[in-house]
């Protein structure tokens, strides 16, 4: 009885179940997955494709760029004044692997996307397919440019490498291309896709025709200068197979290509940013505001969606809105002095006269008077303001000692007043050996957002990062024209750029390569150019020679002191002292081996065809 009862139950249950499943068969078993996107869906849906491309844009490589506070403090333009746990940036030398980059994961992702668009995107129009493929190829060319800049000739892989399980991996092992072959590859790709990218010409955050040209302009200039300057070295850096080193006779061709690309951009819809009558503020606004027609291609940020903490890292100490950090990047005296005076004289600050005595200035910022306006736009120096509030930068007071010389004293606490009245040490330092306050007497203004709450971690900053802007194109054009012997054109370009910085028209009459190099340093400071510029001119080992006595290799500061000397004419005026901050420990030292970063042994183990870079 009991058993039969049980059996009945089971029978009924089974019947019910089977009827259920057969009824709703289609709905129940053939639903689209809610957690998986199929190839057919992805490669046919413009919305999904756009977000995929956005991911690749976000992964575009950079060394010291995209608000990399730490990276910006590793050269001669600045030192690290932030938390002590990263003081190694003031106490290191470029390792063999400095700048090593080998992201074939990203290359594979891009190749995979290109092949899948061909294979799966049946529902897209030809125009749409072209558009997406051109964007992907632009990013791939950009990645190859980053690879060749840092590593020299690298394997050019343009398809997915798929293992066939035959037990023989050699088909996957691609040898390094010659250095010039990679540059040629980049040029060819960009030439092929630039017209397809024209649909995005109104956008500044997606690659358009002019972005492709801007990359051409930069990459060809790099190739040309390596071809020229590497072969001018006493012993050029080369490998037997040409993986490193470009033949000298290719320089003219590359300079010509670079100049042609630059000219096309300058004839395009861009203009040097000139919207603020105050030239210094104008230079700052150019990168901080997202208006104007200067920026060609940028990585954008949006409050509450995608933000960065560059302002949190680098806000002036007394203007901090958060409870930790500030003042991390302390620009160097050598950067400040590389900004010329508006009358055309060299930018060396007149802190002492010919006899070696201090020159006293009425106001604390008088020593910086009549400087290139870009100094104001790049660096916060004593006597200026930020976000509408005056900064308080003063190292201490100078009293006249019994020994007939000035004695410098700093207050035990920032912002204290001196015994006889007046400010002793400013709220913003500088301090010789402290964290989260400037160690050099300067703060960075460029890229530090002045938006409300931008320096808090809760809100953070949303100013954008310019990958390419017209200012650089003018300098590229000027350099290429100069190298090609078109001196008049070269001078016109650089003078036009200097006019925007407050110089009178035709401020340079006798252009030299040194002037162009200095212009690049001041115009493009902190924009991830200097390391590569010095490398391609083959002067990095001379500028950063590791010598502790060299003001270019060592980061110095300039400390302003108020003179307390009652009865003397200089009482209440300001004098300036050059100092080497205690936290800066080791001069920048770039060795021959750093011109090309070493390739990881792991890569060589996997692919024996890879040739080592010189000196590694």
């Amino acid at each position, binding site marked *: 009885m009991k058993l039969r009862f049980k059996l009945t139950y089971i029978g009924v249950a089974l019947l019910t179940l089977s009827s259920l499943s057969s009824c709703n068969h289609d709905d129940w078993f053939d639903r689209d997955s809610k957690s998986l996107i199929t190839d057919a869906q992805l490669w046919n849906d413009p919305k999904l494709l756009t977000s995929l491309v956005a991911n690749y844009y976000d992964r575009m490589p950079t060394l010291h760029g995209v608000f990399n506070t730490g990276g910006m403090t590793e050269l001669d333009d600045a030192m690290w004044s932030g938390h002590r746990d990263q003081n190694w940036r003031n106490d290191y030398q470029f390792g063999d692997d400095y700048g090593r980059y080998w992201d074939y994961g990203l290359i594979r992702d891009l190749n995979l996307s290109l092949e899948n668009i061909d294979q799966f995107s049946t529902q897209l129009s030809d125009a749409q397919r072209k558009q997406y493929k051109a964007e992907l190829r632009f990013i791939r060319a950009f990645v190859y440019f980053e690879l060749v800049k840092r590593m020299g000739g690298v394997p050019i892989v343009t398809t997915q490498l798929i293992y066939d399980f035959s037990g023989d991996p050699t088909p996957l092992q691609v040898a390094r291309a010659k250095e010039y072959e990679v540059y040629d590859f980049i040029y060819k790709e960009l030439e092929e896709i630039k017209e397809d990218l024209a649909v995005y010409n109104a956008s500044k955050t997606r690659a358009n025709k002019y972005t492709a040209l801007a990359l051409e302009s930069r990459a060809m200039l790099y190739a040309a200068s390596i071809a020229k300057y590497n072969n001018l070295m006493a012993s050029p850096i080369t490998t037997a197979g040409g993986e490193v080193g470009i033949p000298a006779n290719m320089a003219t061709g590359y300079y010509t290509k670079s100049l042609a690309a630059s000219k096309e951009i300058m004839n395009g819809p861009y203009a040097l940013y000139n919207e603020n009558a105050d030239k210094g503020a104008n230079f700052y606004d150019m990168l901080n505001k997202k208006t104007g027609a200067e920026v060609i291609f940028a990585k954008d940020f949006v409050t509450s969606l995608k933000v960065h903490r560059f302002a949190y890292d680098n806000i002036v100490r007394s203007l901090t809105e958060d409870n930790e950090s500030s003042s991390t990047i302390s620009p160097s005296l050598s950067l400040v002095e590389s900004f010329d005076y508006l009358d055309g004289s060299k930018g060396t600050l007149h802190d002492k006269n010919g006899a070696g005595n201090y020159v006293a200035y009425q106001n604390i910022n008088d020593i910086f008077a009549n400087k290139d306006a870009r100094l104001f736009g790049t660096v916060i120096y004593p006597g200026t303001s930020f976000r509408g509030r005056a900064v308080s930068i003063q190292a201490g007071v100078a009293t006249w000692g019994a020994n007939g010389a000035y004695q410098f004293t700093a207050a035990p606490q920032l912002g204290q007043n001196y015994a006889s009245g007046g400010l002793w040490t400013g709220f913003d330092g500088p301090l010789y050996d402290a964290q989260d306050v400037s160690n050099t007497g300067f703060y960075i203004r460029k890229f530090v957002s002045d938006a409300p709450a931008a320096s808090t971690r809760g809100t953070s900053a949303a100013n954008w990062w310019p990958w390419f802007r017209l200012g650089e194109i003018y300098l590229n054009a000027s350099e290429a024209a100069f190298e090609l012997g078109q001196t008049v054109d070269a001078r016109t370009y650089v003078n036009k750029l200097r006019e925007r910085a407050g110089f009178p028209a035709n401020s340079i009459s006798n252009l030299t390569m040194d002037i162009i190099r200095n212009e690049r340093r001041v115009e493009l400071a902190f924009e991830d150019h200097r390391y590569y510029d010095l490398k391609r001119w083959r002067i990095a*080992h001379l500028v950063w020679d590791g010598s502790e006595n060299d003001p270019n290799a060592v980061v110095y500061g300039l400390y302003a002191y108020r003179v307390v000397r009652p009865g003397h004419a200089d009482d209440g005026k300001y004098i300036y002292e050059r100092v080497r901050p205690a936290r800066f420990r080791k001069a920048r030292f770039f060795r021959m081996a750093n011109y090309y970063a070493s390739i990881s042994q792991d890569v060589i183990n996997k692919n024996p065809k890879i040739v080592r870079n010189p*000196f590694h």
Partner: protein
Amino acid sequence: MKIKFLSLLVAFASLLVVGCEYDNFEAPKSTLSGRVVYEGKAIGVRNNGPQLELWQDGYPLRSAIPVYFDQDGSFSVSLFDGEYKLVRKGDSPWLQQATDTVLVQVKGNTTIDVPVTPYFTVTNESFQKNNNSISANFTVNRIVGTANLEFVRLYLGKSVLTDQVQRELRVDANLANVAFGQPTRIVGELPDNLKNLDYVFARIGVKATVSGEYYYTAVQKIALK
């Protein structure tokens, strides 16, 4: 019951001890030490400068063991016993011989002299103090026939670590006056920060154009008082 529990505890605890030992590798006990030499004489280098590399075959993956120098050209490395290949790298004051490796058998404490071919050497160096200057007399020799001279320099410093990077005074020789195999002289005026010291350290450095590194003489201490 209690005894059983205790013995179990002991048994498990002893298992843990065994496990620990099993996981750990023994530290290398042998030392390979030596010098870089040319014609039996050690070559001076920059502190924290050139390096050698050691490689070992017989494993699926290879990775270099860096060998660092003292500034007198000596080195020592802790290693396991075995056969190693020693590589003389580029960007050193001597010829790069990346494929011409030196086979080294390490067994216990091993000493070797690594022969290298410097581009230039400096011999017969002597330093004199006259009033407020230091004069150095020496001979520059070209060893590699194709090498070109870039700098011949006198360095003075406060510490025994004196070289191109760490120094108080650097005086360049006029290369037009440097004849190979002939005596050369550099005179350095003592700067204010060295004048009143009890002693300074002096050194000659020579650089070939092909390399970023200098060949240095041994550091010499010169009494000023």
